[in-house]
C-alpha cells in the first residue's frame, strides 16, 4: 500500500497524500471554473447579442415575443422597452457581458441551461432534457468502442513488445501509425461502401449502416418491438426487458460506428503499451520469473503486463477526449442519434445553449477522468509519493 511512511521524509507519507489530493481537487474546481469562462467567451462572448438570439427566433413572431426570448436568453435587460430598442443597442437594453456571464453561471449551476432549438421539439424542450435523451446512445457507443480499444489495443501492444523488432512488431507499429493517419469520416464511409457493395446478402447489407437500431440489414430482426426504461441505455434496457431481438439490433447498429471510433484510441493504447511492456520485460524480476521456470504466458500476463498497465491508464484522459470529439464525426457519418450528431445539428441551428452544455460536459468528463486516474495511480503504484 502507498500509505507506508516514507523513511526519507520522516514518516509524512500519509499527510502528503492528503495534501496532494486536496490540492488536486482545488485545482480541478479552478479548471472547471476556467472552462466555464472559456466556454462562455467562445460562445456568447464572440457572438454579438443579436446574433446569439437568431437560433431561437422563428419567423412571424411579434416583437413582444422576441423581446421576451431575448430576456430569457439573457442578452436583453428586463427594463428594455421594445425589441427594436434592443436591436439598436439602446442604452440600458443590452446586458453587459460580465453580468451575462454571472447570470449564466448561476442558472447553469442550478441546472437551467435554457431551451434547445433542436428537433423534434424546436425551442420548447429544456436543453438538459434534449441532452439527456441523446447521451445514453453516445455512452453505449463509447462503451462498445472502449471494449474494442482495450481488446485490440492490448493485443497489438503485447504482440509488439513480446516480439520486439520482429515482423509482428513492425506490422503492429505500422498499423498504429496508419491508425493515426486515417480520417474517421472517410473510414466510416469506406466501411459503409464495403458492407453495402461487397458484403450484401440478397440485396441487403450484412450490417446496418445508419441509425441506432438496425433496419434493412441481412442479420437484423425486422421489428424488434418495444423496451422498458431502466437505465436509459438501450443496450442494457433491452436486456433487462428480456427483448433479445432489440438487443441484437442495437448491437449490430453499433458495430461499424464503434470500429470507426476506436481507430485512434487503439493506436494510442497499443503504442503506450508497447513501450511500457518493453520496459517491464527488461526488468530483473522478469529474469527471475523466467529463471524460476515459469511459463511464458504467466511471465507476460502476470508479471510484465501488471506493471506495464500503469502508463496505459494515464492515456485514459486522452482516449476519453478522442471518444468525445470523435463522436461528432462518427455519429454524423452513421446518422447515430447521440450527442455528437446533436452538437453538429446545434452548430448548424446556432443552438448556443446546447453547444455550451456539450463543451462543459465533455470537459467535465475529461477533467474528472484525469482526476480519477491521478488518484488511482497513487493506489496502484506504491512507488509514487507526493
Amino acid at each position, binding site marked *: 500500500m502507498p500509505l507506508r511512511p516514507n523513511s526519507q521524509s520522516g514518516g509524512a507519507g500519509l499527510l502528503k497524500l492528503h495534501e496532494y489530493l486536496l490540492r488536486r481537487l482545488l*485545482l480541478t474546481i*479552478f*479548471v472547471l471554473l*476556467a*472552462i466555464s469562462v*472559456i*466556454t462562455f467567451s*467562445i*460562445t456568447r462572448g*464572440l*457572438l*454579438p447579442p443579436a*446574433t446569439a438570439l*437568431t437560433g431561437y427566433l422563428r419567423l412571424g413572431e411579434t416583437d413582444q415575443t422576441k423581446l421576451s426570448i431575448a430576456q430569457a436568453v439573457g442578452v436583453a435587460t428586463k427594463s428594455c422597452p421594445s425589441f427594436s430598442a434592443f436591436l439598436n443597442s439602446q442604452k440600458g437594453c443590452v446586458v453587459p457581458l460580465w453580468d451575462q456571464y454571472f447570470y449564466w453561471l448561476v442558472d447553469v449551476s442550478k441546472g437551467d441551461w435554457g431551451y434547445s432549438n433542436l428537433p423534434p421539439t424546436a425551442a420548447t424542450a429544456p436543453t438538459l432534457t434534449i441532452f439527456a435523451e441523446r447521451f445514453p446512445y453516445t455512452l453505449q457507443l463509447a462503451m462498445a468502442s472502449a471494449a474494442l480499444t482495450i481488446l485490440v489495443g492490448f493485443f497489438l501492444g503485447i504482440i509488439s513488445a513480446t516480439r520486439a523488432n520482429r515482423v509482428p512488431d513492425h506490422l503492429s507499429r505500422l498499423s498504429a*501509425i*496508419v491508425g*493515426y*493517419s*486515417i*480520417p*474517421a*469520416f*472517410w*473510414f466510416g*464511409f*469506406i466501411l*459503409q*461502401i464495403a458492407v*453495402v*457493395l*461487397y458484403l450484401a446478402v440478397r440485396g441487403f447489407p450484412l450490417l446496418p449502416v445508419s441509425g441506432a437500431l438496425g433496419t434493412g440489414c441481412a442479420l437484423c430482426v425486422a421489428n424488434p418491438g418495444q423496451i422498458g426504461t431502466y437505465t436509459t441505455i438501450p443496450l442494457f434496457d433491452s436486456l433487462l426487458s428480456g427483448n433479445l431481438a432489440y438487443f441484437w439490433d442495437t448491437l449490430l447498429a453499433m458495430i461499424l460506428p464503434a470500429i470507426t471510433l476506436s481507430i485512434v484510441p487503439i493506436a494510442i493504447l497499443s503504442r503506450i503499451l508497447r513501450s511500457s511492456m518493453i520496459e517491464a520485460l527488461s526488468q530483473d524480476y522478469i529474469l527471475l520469473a523466467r529463471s524460476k521456470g515459469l511459463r511464458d504466458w504467466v511471465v507476460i500476463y502476470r508479471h510484465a503486463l501488471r506493471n506495464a498497465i500503469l502508463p496505459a491508464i494515464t492515456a485514459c484522459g486522452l482516449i476519453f*477526449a*478522442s471518444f*468525445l*470529439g*470523435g463522436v*461528432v*464525426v462518427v455519429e*454524423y457519418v452513421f446518422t447515430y442519434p447521440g450527442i455528437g450528431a446533436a*452538437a*453538429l445539428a446545434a*452548430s*448548424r441551428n*446556432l443552438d*448556443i445553449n446546447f*453547444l455550451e452544455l*456539450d*463543451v462543459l460536459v*465533455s*470537459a467535465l468528463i*475529461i*477533467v474528472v477522468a*484525469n482526476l480519477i486516474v491521478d488518484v488511482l495511480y497513487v493506489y496502484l503504484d506504491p512507488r509514487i509519493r507526493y
Partner: protein
Amino acid sequence: MAQTEANPEKTGRRGAELRRRLRIVRQNPPLLAGAIIVSGTVLVALFSGVIVNPNSYKILNFPSALCWSNPIYTWGIPNLKACPGKTFYPLGADNYGRNLLDVIILAVPLDLEVSLVVVASAIVIGITAGGTAAYVGGWVDEAILRVTDVFLAIPSLVLGLVLLTTLGQTFPKSGFAIITFALVIIWWPYYVRLIRSQVIAEKQKPYVQALRSVGAGNVRILFRHIIRNSIYPIFVQGSLDIGGVILVFSAFTFLGFSPSPQIPELGSLVNAGIDNVFIAPWLVLFPGLTIVTISLGFNLLGDGLRDALDPRFRR
C-alpha cells in the same frame, strides 16, 4: 579548390558524416518512406497549377457526371456509368463531370498550406509562452500551465466545432482564416507543454551557467541558445502534427465548415461524394486516400526522425 586541398581531413570527415547520415536514413525505412511521400506531396502541391490547368475545376461537363472509364477495376457495381467521349478519367469523374484526379491535385496545396501555417503558428506561440513559462518559472509558469490545462480539457473537435460556429457567425467573410485560427487554438497548448519541458531540461545544463557568467541577457540565452538546442524534438512533433492537422482540417471542411465549398479541398471533396457514395464510391475513396497518404507521410517522417535523432536508437 585550393581550400579543399589544403584541408583534406575536413572534407573526409564531412564525407563520413554524410555517409553516416545516409546510413541512418537507409536503416530507418519509416524515415525513408516518410521523406519520399512528404517530398512527393510538397512537389505536387508546389506544381499543381503546372501539372493541371488551375481553372479546370471550374469547367463543368454534366454528360460525364459520376462516370467511370478506368477498365482496370470496375467496382462490381452492376450499372456502372461509362464515360462518354474520349477523355480518360483514371480516378473517375465527379458529380460535375470533372476529372477527379485533376481536382484532387488542385486540392493538395490548400490542405498542406493550412496545416503548415497552423503548426508554424502553434510552434511560435509554444516557443514564446512555453519558453517564458519554463525560464521565468514561479507564478508565471503556473498561470501558463493552468491555461493550457483548460484548453486541453476540451476535446479538440468539440472546441473547433464551437469556435467555427461562433466565429463563422461573427466574421462571415474571412475565408479560411477562421478555420486556421480555430486549429491554432486547438494545437497551441501541446507546444507550450512540449517546449516548456524541453527548456526546463535544458536550462540546468552547464552551458547556460557559462553564458550567464559571461553576461548574456535572459532573452538571448533563451531564444538564441536554449531554444536552438531543443529544436529537434519540436521538429519531430511538428512533422507528426502536420499529419494530425490535415485530418482535423479536412474533418471540419467535410462537416461543412468550408467557407467556399466549391474551392477544391480534400475534405469538401469527400463531402461532395457522400450523396452518391454507393453509385460512385471513388468520389469518397480517392480524396480520402489522398488525406491518408499525406498524413501517413508526415507521421512516418516524424516517427523516423525521432528514432534517428534519439541517440538511444542510434546504431
